[in-house]
């Protein structure tokens, strides 16, 4: 009797969560947030702590969820013997998607920048923003080497940024990428030892996963409030000066972003044989959570739930790909780096031929991987890898990108979530049987 009551309460909570997170309510919350942000009302700053509190709540269960989900996904794939096929299919679609996103990211903005040129007024406004942001001096150096400031090397990165040398340090510092790598390696080890000894803690992990999903459901009730509290102050931060400078950058970013954001649900719908409207409505939840939190990893539980429960995508590719894909393959960053480079090139009078555009796409993809483990302004550092081969100044770009970032970070995260959600759909397709995992 008690168990039945608990299940009923759980189902009613899920029903309430689904009701609150309907596409219509999500869209209404976004429109309200944008309208409030555009009005730049002073009280919006008081919403910022509310938004930060909401993100903190969401982050509570992200790492435990990843630690439980990835070994379970590894076990599921290895037990069924389908792992090689699933991995091969995922790898194929990842490569195809990266190439397609890079091609679209280069094509649309380069067409825009070849026809649109900044006028004198815009150059003055951008120059004024630059002068102010850089505190009027770009570089300081000393002639006498003894007085010269030590030139700092690049931050530790590359392959070393992936190795979890101390998993407890990674967990305590919220270093999600190293946690992911650890979980994947540990998952393989657990499966192999389970085969030898017959003992495992997979049931316990499944329980941890269910607990995390439940906690996430509680916090999902606050999604509309979170969207307003996070998006409105962010939009309000873009002052009129920034808008003037933004126009030239924002048009290609928003236009190309919109194309990619529409393409992702369309391809999903095609792969799943579902109606584009229903797929768009379902993906809206994780994508908008990404837009409001500007944190891709926070969206992992909701993205998995949406794909597996709402869109009925096969579990294996979702569990295997979504946590790792969202953390490591940053499609939004590829687009962002391409547009930032074309934008700076146009400002500085640099022309890009077809070979340059090809190289730009390659460099942007490479640099997007260098942002793994970084977020916010720190994630701009690898932009230097893209700008400098074209003789463009990273030092000029950074102050401008910081001004633009409140908007750009939202677009980047939305693209990361939406396009990564598309890949398991293409690789796995629709599940033959409805999943029951969420009810376990």
């Amino acid at each position, binding site marked *: 009797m008690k168990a039945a009551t608990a299940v009923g309460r759980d189902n009613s909570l899920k029903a309430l969560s689904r009701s609150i997170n309907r596409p219509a309510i999500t869209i209404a919350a976004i429109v309200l947030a944008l309208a409030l942000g555009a009005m730049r009302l002073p009280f919006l700053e008081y919403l910022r702590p509310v938004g930060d509190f909401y993100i903190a709540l969401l982050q509570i269960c992200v790492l435990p969820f990843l630690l439980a989900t990835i070994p379970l996904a590894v076990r599921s794939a290895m037990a069924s013997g389908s792992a090689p096929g699933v991995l091969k299919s995922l790898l194929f679609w990842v490569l195809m998607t990266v190439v397609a996103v890079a091609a679209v990211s280069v094509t649309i903005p380069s067409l825009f920048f070849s026809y649109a040129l900044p006028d004198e007024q815009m150059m003055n406004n951008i*120059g004024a923003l630059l002068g102010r942001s850089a505190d009027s*001096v770009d570089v300081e*150096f000393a002639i006498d080497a003894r*007085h010269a400031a030590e030139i700092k090397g690049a931050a530790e990165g590359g392959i070393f940024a992936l190795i979890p040398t101390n998993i407890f340090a990674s967990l305590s510092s919220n270093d999600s990428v190293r946690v992911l790598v650890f979980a994947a390696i540990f998952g393989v080890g657990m499966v192999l030892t389970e085969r030898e000894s017959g003992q495992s803690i997979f049931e316990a992990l499944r329980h941890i996963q269910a607990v995390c999903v439940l906690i996430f459901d509680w916090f999902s009730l606050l999604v509309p409030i979170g969207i307003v509290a996070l998006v409105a102050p962010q939009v309000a931060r873009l002052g009129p000066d920034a808008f003037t400078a933004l126009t030239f950058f924002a048009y290609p970013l928003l236009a190309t972003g919109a194309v990619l954001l529409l393409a992702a649900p369309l391809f999903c719908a095609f792969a799943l044989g579902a109606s584009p409207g229903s797929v768009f409505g379902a993906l809206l939840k994780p994508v908008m959570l990404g837009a409001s939190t500007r944190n891709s990893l926070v969206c992992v539980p909701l993205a998995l739930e949406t794909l597996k429960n709402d869109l009925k995508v096969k579990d294996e590719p979702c569990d295997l790909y979504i946590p790792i894909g969202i953390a490591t393959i940053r499609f939004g960053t590829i687009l962002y780096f391409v547009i930032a480079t074309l934008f700076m090139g146009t400002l*500085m009078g640099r022309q890009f031929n077809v070979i340059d555009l090809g190289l730009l796409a390659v460099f942007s993809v490479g640099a997007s991987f260098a942002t793994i483990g970084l977020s916010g302004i720190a994630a701009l550092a690898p932009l230097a890898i893209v700008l400098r081969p074209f003789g463009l100044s990273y030092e*000029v770009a950074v102050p401008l990108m910081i001004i633009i970032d409140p908007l750009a970070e939202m677009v980047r995260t939305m693209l990361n979530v939406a396009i990564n959600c598309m890949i398991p759909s293409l690789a796995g397709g629709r599940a033959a049987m409805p999943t029951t995992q969420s009810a376990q």
Partner: protein
Amino acid sequence: MIVRTLCGAVALVSWIGLWNVPAVAQPSEAAAPRDLKSIVDAQVLRVALTRFDLPSFHVRGPDGRLFGPEIEMAQQIGGALGVGVEFIDSAESFDTVVDYVAVGRADIGVSKLSQTYNRLKRVRFSEPYVTLRHALLFNRLAIARVAAGRPPAVVLQKYAGRLGVIGGSAYVDFASRNFPDATVVEARNWDTAIENLLSGNVDALYRDEFEIRRVLKNKPALNVQLGSAVIVDQNALLSVAICDTCSKLQQFINYHIGVTRGAFTLKKLLDSDLGKSAR
């Protein structure tokens, strides 16, 4: 006979020519060095200035009247001495202002003059009334190209390209000392130097922090194309040039600068609208 007549004529013309060469060109013709007492006796302090405006320092009004903080400083010194001030504002370059003081055509010179080793061989300088850091205005694209992925400071520190300076300014000396690998290109004036930079004749200009920042402040659009770099260990000590033997006058001016300390600051200079429209 004809040859002898021609030689005689040439000698006569040369002699007349030499007799009429301005004092700047013939130090041997210099007036006797003076000091505080002779200036007070003459009831006039002769102040040399550049014949071109130096916005924020001294400029000419529509009626030709001079004004600006340097003019006020000279008038205050004259007032403290109890003598009138005569401005000799015909110097074609910064070095010429120093020349005027060196040869005795003026008692002091004020025109944003930096102390340099070469100048100190010929005149005294007061304590600096403002100290500005040396700075570069550079073409971002050109420097980024040479930097090839390294920070621009690495290239600028050992700059080896074409470096623009104003001819007859202290920065000719500074450039050869601080950037020995660079090709120094002297421009007639600051506007020409900026044109050289914008047209690609040079990739960097060398002057003080005030002038570099002033260019970008007055035309913000240039921030995109041009970057500014400050050299943290090189200072321009802007001082009053004083005749080489005028030790008492130097002491007097140092005292005045000491009691009016703060009259010139980088912020005040940058915020000043003096001469903004003239340039």
